[in-house]
């Protein structure tokens, strides 16, 4: 299932990729494109998220298919010029200070001397670690480690950032600051791929979502559009209007409406099937019946709700 509302310039292209580890199939015929903006990669443990990230960053090769990053094979060193990785683990060269670590990373990227120092200071500023950069990394909290890893990933100003659970262990204020940073980077035209198991983070953060489960890409695209495409899954819609007791029975005559309940004297809760058809039918109904609708809101379009449904579909026997 795929939904793309706008034309996207792909920075990374995954073409029918499968990956086996011995007899275990970690990815199965996955095809997708990642363009500028924030893309959320969502799936349960063992879904294939990490395998996909490792393939994109050229740590492993696909068993079948191909991956291009900025037009180059992801395994090649040239492709890695365009990618910055913030890995999941906290492991790093702990004996170094944050500033030294970022400078070493600059060195690994080919920057030396004044340029390495300039870039290091710039990314420390960006991730908000300037005042704590002289402390050894081993003394850092989880959130500070995440920030310094993000600094390492940004040191060469990559076109695409691959972030494996970047908000893991970060306090709520820090999360908001990092999310703002991701949005800023995305606004600069970078592709930001964020893997996360905290699904509700994606509601506000990601422009697009990639749902993976059991090595397959279940759905991709903007969350609302994915939700709309799930035609056999009930969607709950709350409608506030002047006369719910009159409108309720009328709405039940629409084909896409499964049930209607009166929540409060002014609110109706509808369970509808096939959201696209419902929206069309409801517009026609509201225009023709002077329904005086004051508010209209779909209540379960969250990532979590969509994810639960997709998971349910994925494990359902054919």
């Amino acid at each position, binding site marked *: 299932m795929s939904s793309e509302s706008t034309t996207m310039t792909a920075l990374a292209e995954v073409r029918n990729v499968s990956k086996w580890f011995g007899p275990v199939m970690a990815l199965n015929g996955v095809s997708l494109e990642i363009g500028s903006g924030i893309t959320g990669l969502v799936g349960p443990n063992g879904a294939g998220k990490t395998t996909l990230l490792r393939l994109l*960053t*050229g*740590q*492993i*090769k696909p068993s079948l298919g191909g991956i291009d990053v900025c037009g180059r094979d992801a395994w090649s*060193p*040239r492709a*890695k*010029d365009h*990618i910055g*990785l913030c*890995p999941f*683990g906290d*492991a*790093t*060269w702990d004996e170094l200070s944050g500033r030294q670590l970022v400078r070493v*990373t600059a060195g*690994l*990227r*080919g920057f030396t001397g004044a340029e390495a120092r300039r870039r290091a200071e710039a990314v420390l500023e960006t991730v908000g670690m300037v005042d704590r950069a002289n402390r050894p990394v081993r003394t850092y909290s989880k959130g500070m480690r995440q920030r310094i890893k993000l600094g*390492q990933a940004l040191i*060469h100003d990559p076109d695409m950032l691959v972030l494996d659970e970047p908000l893991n262990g970060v306090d709520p204020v820090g999360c908001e600051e990092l999310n703002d940073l991701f949005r800023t980077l995305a606004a600069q035209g970078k592709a930001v791929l964020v893997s996360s198991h905290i699904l509700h983070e994606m509601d506000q953060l990601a422009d697009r979502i990639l749902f993976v489960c059991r090595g397959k890409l279940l759905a991709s695209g903007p969350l609302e559009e994915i939700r709309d495409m799930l035609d056999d899954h009930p969607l709950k819609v709350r409608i506030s209007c002047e006369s719910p007791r009159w409108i309720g029975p009328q709405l039940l005559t629409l084909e896409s409406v499964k049930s209607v309940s009166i929540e409060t004297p002014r609110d109706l809760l509808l369970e509808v099937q096939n959201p696209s058809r419902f929206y069309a039918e409801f517009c026609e109904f509201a225009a023709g019946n002077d329904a005086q609708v004051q508010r209209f809101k779909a209540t379960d379009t969250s990532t979590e709700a969509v994810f639960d449904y997709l998971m349910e579909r994925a494990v359902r026997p054919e």
Partner: protein
Amino acid sequence: MLVLLGLAVLITYLWSLPKPWHPDPRTSAELAREIVLPLYMGFLLPVICLGYASAAIADERTGETLVYLLTTNIPRPLVYLSKYAAALILTLGMALGGLGSLCLVPGKIGLEALGVFWPVTACATAAYVGLFLLFSAWVRRATFLSLAYALMIETLTGNIPGFVKRITVSFYAKSWLYESGEMLELAAKGVALSLFDPVSAATAQWVLGLASAGFIVLGMWIFSRKEYD
């Protein structure tokens, strides 16, 4: 590593002291035959080399920091070559420093032995580092494999009569020493010499050089293709 070296220096110092059953001052040849060849070349040198080289990549894997090297734009063979250069410099410093300590503890008699042993030590170190770094790129628990190799292959096979010992680094190092250390009377005599059947120093130098280069190239090939977890 420093503890092992310290222990070896202590043994050498005790060995050099005059004893009732050996009141005469020790000679350079005795130092070479009784201490440097068996203790240093036969045991300490492989252990020093495996200590540094086998950890060079394996430690990055177990410490999960290898990902930072694998996701840079540096070609993997170059990453491996840099690792080899770094491990070689570190190991050479330790190996030659250790050799110097052992040779100089008994006094001036060690200078002659040092002059004979250091070129062989340097070349053997280059070969050992190449081999153990190759193990490090190949398997996760490279230290165990290197230790098993050092003890089983270098020590046991290296002392078995016949052709098999020619697969060991120590055979070529000893062959080189037997020829260059003639004045130190290092070479085995009589039947022992015929059983050992050394190659010439020139051949030993070629083999050690080619083996080092071969190990590096093979390691670069493995490292550039392997998918590390």
